[in-house]
């Protein structure tokens, strides 16, 4: 388990949280967003996460970042838990909820970005 995207971004453009401490998993997601001149759209330039959770939660968080990097906001918002599970090569039934973390944290981070604008 060696996540590539763990950590935080200094001066992020958006920060999101997901999870709850009763279930045991919490995730924070930091976004750096830039205007892509070619696409004329806002693109996720970089992102990092910090997750307290089991191995499935940590891997889901990392894979979510992997899938989201370079995506436009519209594309990013289409991310579904199933995409994360597919990229991971499957998750056991009891761990499916872990894949929600990335999606929820992303929504929260984009909301935060739009509010800051």
């Amino acid at each position: 388990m060696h996540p590539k995207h763990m950590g935080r971004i200094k001066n992020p453009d958006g920060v999101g949280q997901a999870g709850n401490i009763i279930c045991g998993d919490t995730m924070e997601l930091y976004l750096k967003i830039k205007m892509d001149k070619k696409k004329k759209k806002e693109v996720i330039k970089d992102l990092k996460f910090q997750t307290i959770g089991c191995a499935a939660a940590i891997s889901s968080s990392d894979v979510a970042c992997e899938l989201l990097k370079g995506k436009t906001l519209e594309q990013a918002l289409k991310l579904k838990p199933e995409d994360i599970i597919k990229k991971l090569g499957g998750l056991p039934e009891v761990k499916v909820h872990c894949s929600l973390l990335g999606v929820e944290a992303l929504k929260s981070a984009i909301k935060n970005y739009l509010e800051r604008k």
Partner: protein
Amino acid sequence: MKSIYLDYASTTPLAPEVLKAMQLYLTRCFGNPSSLHSFGEKARKAVEDSRKKIAEFLFCLPEEIIFTGSATEASNLAIFGIVRPSIQSIEGSVKPHIITSSIEHKSVFMPCRILEDEGAELTYLPVTKEGFIKISDFKKALKKNTVLVSLIYANNEIGAIQPIGEIAKAISAYRKSHIANYNDKRLAISAMPYFHIDAVQAVNYLDCDVKKLGVDFLTLSGHKIYGPKGIGALYVKNGSPIKPLIYGGGQEGGLRSGTENTAAIAGLGEAIRQIANGKSQIAKIRKLKNKLFKGILKNISDVKLNGTLDNSLPNILNISFRGVEGEAIELALDSEGIAVSTGSACAAKDLKPSHVLMALGVSPKDSHGAIRFSLGKYTTEREIDRVLKVLPGIIERLRKIAGYHSK
């Protein structure tokens, strides 16, 4: 890399002596103990020899030992076997009352919950933050309609040893002072309340003399004491009005039908004999546990002992590592060849933290970061050294992922 097993409270390896005792009954002596011919006779002798060894260990009569398919089954037999008939015999508004604790194993907790649904009244005793039942709480919980008290002798997650002898004394005093109530025709049972203990984790290390303890039922397991899986036993005090759960050929005094698991029974008897002969290595195990605890305290910040070192089993150490999830630690240690366990919930369907740690008042956050190290007679000092070498790095890495900064 040699793997290191620190999960003896989950299950133990079969001791070589036990395997040897079993082999004959898996091969040549395959007879059915109920058969009259010589094949059956040999198998019967193995079953009865094992029963005698267990009876000697518990200081009871051989006929008071009932073999079951697991410790779970043994506890189910004690609880349902006593309480269900009393639900039927007590009419009207009087409900049978059960006292248990908030830190029971699922094999006791679940039957109690089922009986609650079936109309029994339940008291789940709280515990102190160290994990002990208070005698004063227990005395207050006793009632006229209490038919059963079921408690864990030594807890499987934190190792806390309950004051069973003192509780038995309180029960005995209560029985004497309330003897008049037993004439109540609706409670056509005498000697209430009955006292059951789950001694599964205790058998290796604690005195299990049922007379000294003052219990009516005691559950024990094969695979927690270097015996085989698929075998348990229940001590049933003579004269207890207990009803079976399984009906059939009437084996085990009619309390547990089904052809006896001869090899496993022989193995259980040998496992008990090893303990009776002082092969549990209690002093060595306690020394290694203390070394592990001190090493963790010295090398890792923000850790918390769940439970206490006093009045605790010599082999169980439960520690919360703040800012990380137990399961992540378990998997990271596993990739280093080290097996530990977590009561943490992420894998359980309800996602709730361990009910035992919650009952101790441990915060949900700390419960999720809890790891249970459980040592056994084959644990070596080198193994503990190795754990102490790799654990700090693992915790540091996981804390980094979590963005956790220790104080």
